[in-house]
């Protein structure tokens, strides 16, 4: 295989091309104290990317700017700013059609503005990686953390992962390419995190060596040809046959859509291998479980400790991948639970709805607390909500002076 034969050679920046598994599991790690944005930069430095396309929108702007520095240092093949988020995502498609490994970042309203492109990326089988640093999407304008935009990505045909920490983010950017570029997968990845909480806080992150990088993308393993104006999907829009209203045309389009979702299913085995499972479970025998994704998991851990002080045993289920959805894993992890609480940073509680649709006896699921608009979610609130749900007495946390 062409990619394998390049291991040990040097890339354009003089980095040694490493076996990806060894790079991520065996290479020496150096602890560094970085913001999440800096961590994105350091992961991209090692990702052997061909193209990064940027557009400023808080809270991903800093990461996008930092990757510009990587371009100046020779680590990225090409880097430029698009006219808008829609333009950026279209340009990403063009680069990926041409056989490039592509990276971009977006957030909140930017994600929504570019939305038309995401099912197109998936349908065109383009393994673009897009970092989504989630923020509010509604009016009145909010730049604060809010994960509602993830729910819009869940049915685009993209892989969707939700990182909890900067360390997750670092590792998953690199692992993400390894999963999404598999020929039986070959889909775009939306790698999400909670904006500001992850991007603008500092944490200790263990980095792989800066002089080693991923193997380059090999477009000849793609399940579709590189850009060809005469072939679907590019030709779809101008070809009378495929656009015709008849059974054959419909069957082609239906089979095409099914194939995208089949590819998500195929990503399951690769995702399990690279992420060490689609979920992580702490205390699986507990009768009360906090099930969540992103930084709500971190808050859940703190709540777990508070509840333990009160003699209440609580387990934690961290959902790492939302697409592919860990249905079997969640059913297994929750089979003994009597109460399942799902804290979320969004107004609709979309994760709780997904979990309810997955498990038997869905009335075990308590959707909440779900804060939004940038509100924090103190662990005391999770603990108090859980106690209230159990019929136990808890202190009021919102009032003053009473």
């Amino acid at each position: 295989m062409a990619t394998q034969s390049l291991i040990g050679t040097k890339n354009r920046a003089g980095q040694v091309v490493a076996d990806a598994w060894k790079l991520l599991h065996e290479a020496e790690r150096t602890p560094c104290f970085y913001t999440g944005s800096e961590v994105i930069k350091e992961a991209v430095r090692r990702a052997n990317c061909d193209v990064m396309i940027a557009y400023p929108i808080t809270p991903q702007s800093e990461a996008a700017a930092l990757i510009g520095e990587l371009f100046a240092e020779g680590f990225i093949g090409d880097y430029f700013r698009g006219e808008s988020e829609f333009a950026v995502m279209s340009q990403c498609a063009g680069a990926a059609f041409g056989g490039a490994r592509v990276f971009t970042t977006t957030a909140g309203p930017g994600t929504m503005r570019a939305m038309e492109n995401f099912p197109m990326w998936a349908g065109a089988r383009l393994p673009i990686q897009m970092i989504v640093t989630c923020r509010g999407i509604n009016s009145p304008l909010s730049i604060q953390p809010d994960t509602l935009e993830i729910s819009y990505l869940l049915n685009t045909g993209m892989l969707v992962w939700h990182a909890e920490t900067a360390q997750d983010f670092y590792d998953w950017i690199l692992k993400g390419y390894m999963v999404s570029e598999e020929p039986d997968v070959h889909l775009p990845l939306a790698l999400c995190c909670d904006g500001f909480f992850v991007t603008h806080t500092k944490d200790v992150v263990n980095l792989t060596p800066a002089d080693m990088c991923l193997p380059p993308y090999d477009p000849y393993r793609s399940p579709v040809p590189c850009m060809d104006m005469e072939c679907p999907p590019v030709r779809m829009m101008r070809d009378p046959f495929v656009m015709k209203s008849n059974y054959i045309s419909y069957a082609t389009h239906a089979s095409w859509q099914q194939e995208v979702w089949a590819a998500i299913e195929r990503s399951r085995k690769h995702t399990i291998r690279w992420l060490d499972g689609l979920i992580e479970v702490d205390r699986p025998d507990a009768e009360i479980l906090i099930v969540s994704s992103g930084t709500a998991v971190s808050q859940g851990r703190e709540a777990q400790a508070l509840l333990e002080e009160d003699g209440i045993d609580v387990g934690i289920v961290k959902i790492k991948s939302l697409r592919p959805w860990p249905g079997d894993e969640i059913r297994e992890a929750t089979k003994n639970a009597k109460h399942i609480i799902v804290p979320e940073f969004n107004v609709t509680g979309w994760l709780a709805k997904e979990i309810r649709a997955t498990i038997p006896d869905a009335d075990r699921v308590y959707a909440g607390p779900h804060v939004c608009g940038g509100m924090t979610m103190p662990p005391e609130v999770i603990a108090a909500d859980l106690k209230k749900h159990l019929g136990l007495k808890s202190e009021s946390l919102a009032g003053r002076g009473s």
Partner: protein
Amino acid sequence: MSTMYQVLRGPEHFLPPAAASMGIRLPDPGQAHIHGKIVNEDEAMEVAARQFLSAKVPTIFPGPLVLWAWNEKAAGKATAIRHLYETLKECVTPSQQAMLIPMPDYRPKYPKINPEIEINPNHPNLTIWHNKIDTCMFVGVHCHQANLSLKIIRGGTYCYTIAMCAQAGHEDAMVSFRDATADKIRKLADWVKKLKGSVEPPKD
């Protein structure tokens, strides 16, 4: 996901599901699958060869990855495919008709395809119906296009499908190999030769 689903000869449904969505998993290196069940490669070789020998119109559909001699590997595979086709012709009875019909590209054909000379992934059923093909093998077709075709074939035709895939294989075929090389294609030809005369030809 555990599954009871089997990838069987159609016509299956107005819109058959993608086998991957029904819990069918791709084989690992060294393996193949038959009707969605993971088996060792030799077992699948024998089943594929028997299927060719028992078909009225066993057909190979070579795709653009092997047709245009765009590198040495492609040319080597094309030679091996020609060898498999010649072997099939030698090994079938006069009542059977082995065919080799290319999928030269993926362009939708307008105003209509000529099903006697080519197959297209957007409407493979037309070529299969026209030529009364009851067993076919895809080789050298990009994976996405092959899966598109295999589902449509399973949905609307009686054709038995075999995939000789250079990548990870195809759940939507009834028999699928992975990591195809010229040697693997020649090995299938050897199986056809080995089983010649031991498989009952189709009845009229």
